[in-house]
């Protein structure tokens, strides 16, 4: 029997393979998003030494630990302010925040809206599994009404956030939503934000078969792919006010917002040099070359 040729997954150089196996459950969508992200990064031909990933806490917060990039696993909800400091201190970095819906929109919600308002040049990827998964499947800010969770045993009766509408209202330069079924579209969106300046937001609807789909009798990971396929409708450019998610209704996907606004550094530089003239001194970045 002849030896099989060695097959190397093209995204492998971007992963800390020595840390595998990862902690994610079978059927979880986070790994799929990481695969898309790795492909988008490779296709972007960015200098990968200049790409930093910042995560908060939760299942998606563990992404930082698996990508072979400069990576920061920060505190719960605070990936965005950490990323803000990192980006401002070294503007040559491409800073990507990778975290979950609970981390970014409950405990970290304030930071999200303010970073979007400032239009800090960071790219935020939100893996939305509709619950707090790491802690056992509790209600989160994106949990749809009537869904069963560990802390809503009779069904959730809070309205959920429409994350895309929130991002747009707060000032994001780019807003898109995909599901883990839409791997090509997601990869393309990730590539777009890597080329775009300003605060960019991608929501990725992702299954948590262990804690969300199981409790809500929605099947396993494969069933969720079928669900995403059936329920999704591409609605590029749709008003974000119309793309709110419900438990069983249509999933509007696509690129909703793509606009130009001066980013934080540009605004700062513009105002300060206008006011101070020659006295304005740019921050010297010890690491930039």
């Amino acid at each position, binding site marked *: 029997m002849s030896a099989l040729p060695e097959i190397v997954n093209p995204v492998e150089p971007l992963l*800390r393979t020595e*840390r595998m196996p990862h902690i994610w459950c079978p059927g979880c969508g986070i790994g799929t998003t990481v695969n898309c992200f790795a492909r988008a990064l490779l296709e972007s031909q960015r200098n*990968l*030494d*200049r790409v*930093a990933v*910042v995560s908060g806490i939760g299942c998606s917060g563990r992404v*930082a*630990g698996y990508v*072979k*990039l*400069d*990576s*920061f*696993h*920060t*505190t719960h*909800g*605070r990936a965005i*302010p*950490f*990323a*803000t*400091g*990192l*980006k*401002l*201190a*070294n503007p*040559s*970095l491409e800073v990507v925040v990778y975290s979950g819906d609970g981390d970014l929109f409950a405990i970290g919600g*304030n*930071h999200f809206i*303010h970073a979007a308002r400032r239009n800090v040049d960071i790219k935020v990827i939100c893996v939305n599994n509709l619950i707090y998964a790491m802690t056992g499947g509790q209600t989160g800010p994106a949990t749809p009404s009537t869904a069963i969770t560990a802390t809503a045993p009779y069904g959730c009766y809070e309205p959920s956030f429409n994350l895309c509408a929130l991002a747009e209202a707060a000032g994001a330069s780019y807003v898109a939503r995909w599901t883990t079924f839409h791997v090509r579209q997601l990869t393309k969106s990730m590539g777009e934000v890597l080329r775009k300046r300003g605060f960019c937001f991608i929501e990725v609807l992702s299954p948590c078969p262990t804690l969300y789909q199981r409790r809500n009798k929605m099947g396993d990971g494969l069933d969720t792919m079928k669900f995403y396929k059936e329920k999704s409708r591409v609605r590029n450019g749709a008003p974000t006010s119309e793309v709110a998610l419900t438990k069983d209704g249509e999933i509007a996907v696509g690129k909703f917002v793509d606009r130009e606004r001066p980013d934080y550094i540009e605004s*700062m530089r513009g105002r*300060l040099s206008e006011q*101070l003239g020659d*006295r*304005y*001194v*740019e*921050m*010297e*970045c*010890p*690491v*930039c070359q």
Partner: protein
Amino acid sequence: MQADPRGVLTGIHFIDGDHACCEGALAAGARFAAGYPITPSTEVVERFAARIPTVGGIFIQMEDELAASITIQGAVWGGAKAFTVTSGPGFSLMMEHIGYAAMTETPCVFVNVQRGGPSTGLPTLPAQADMMQARWGSHGDYEIIALSPNSPQECFDLTVRAFNLSEEYRTPVMFMMDECVGHMTEKVVIPPAEQVEVYPRRHTRRAPGAYKPYEPEADLVPEMVHAGEGYRFHITGLTHDEWGYPNMNVATQDRLVRRLQQKIRAAEDRLTMVDEHGLEDAEVVVVSYGITSRVAERAIEMARQRGVKAGRCRLIGVWPFPDRHLKALAARVKAFVVPEINLGQIAREGERAAGGAARTIPVTHAGGGVHRPQDILEAIMEAAR
């Protein structure tokens, strides 16, 4: 190394402690600050916001203190020296990130201009009641360094030292001012840049691949790198191994937490910073810090006039507590008198250090003002009896 002259406002100034603290940060090389307005500390960042665009750096006003206290840490990993400034309620919000800085060994400075608490307390009036919070406020076992200035001049000098110590030990340093020192205006001499010693970042010389982010040097402090340099490193607040990767087991936890404690405790003698006077013949030692030390000075004088051999031991470095130093002192005096604007936070530390060899008499004050020298004098007289 010498300070970057662009940040050093050499000359003789008449400024308050908050402004002097800002100049100290600039002289130390801080080029990034994040803050959230809170009385009585805001003047530090107001001055920074005005000064930094002509020095070359960034001030960003964040949406809250949770953000400010982690934004600075992002900036540090991006290569900057950075700090944040706050007071009581804001300091409470920063606690988690003091722990994150301790755990990830991120050098940075937290300035706390103390006001009366608990809760909103006395926003415009002084206290020294966050001393234990500075030491123990974040969860888990860790060590920090804390300094306490008693004049605008020291707000300059010791802010420089706070940055230097944070770099040398890779630890968050608490700069524990109080409202009085913060708003007191006095002469502040800022020396020429070549006379300001600045501790550079402990950046590794190892190449990527040969470098482990948490491999300690002989002094138990690991070397650092920054994002964007090609090291592809990982930082986490989880218990981590020398590679910086999460490794949650008892052995790794034990090794890490003990090292974090030991890198500072082992340096206790080097970190003991006291200002002493009249101890040759002293029977009673007034142990104080910050603004209270200036009131205490008058009480010591009055006691001497009454024939009581009183002396001064002013704590400039409060954490790590100078245990060995005070223990030795306790062995040759009758008593410690410890006035402070709280209900006895550091007095209990003094008592612990004395280990029964000398009496410890707290002179408490709930906040909102300073002691009367008379109150301290009475405690000295009682101690001498």
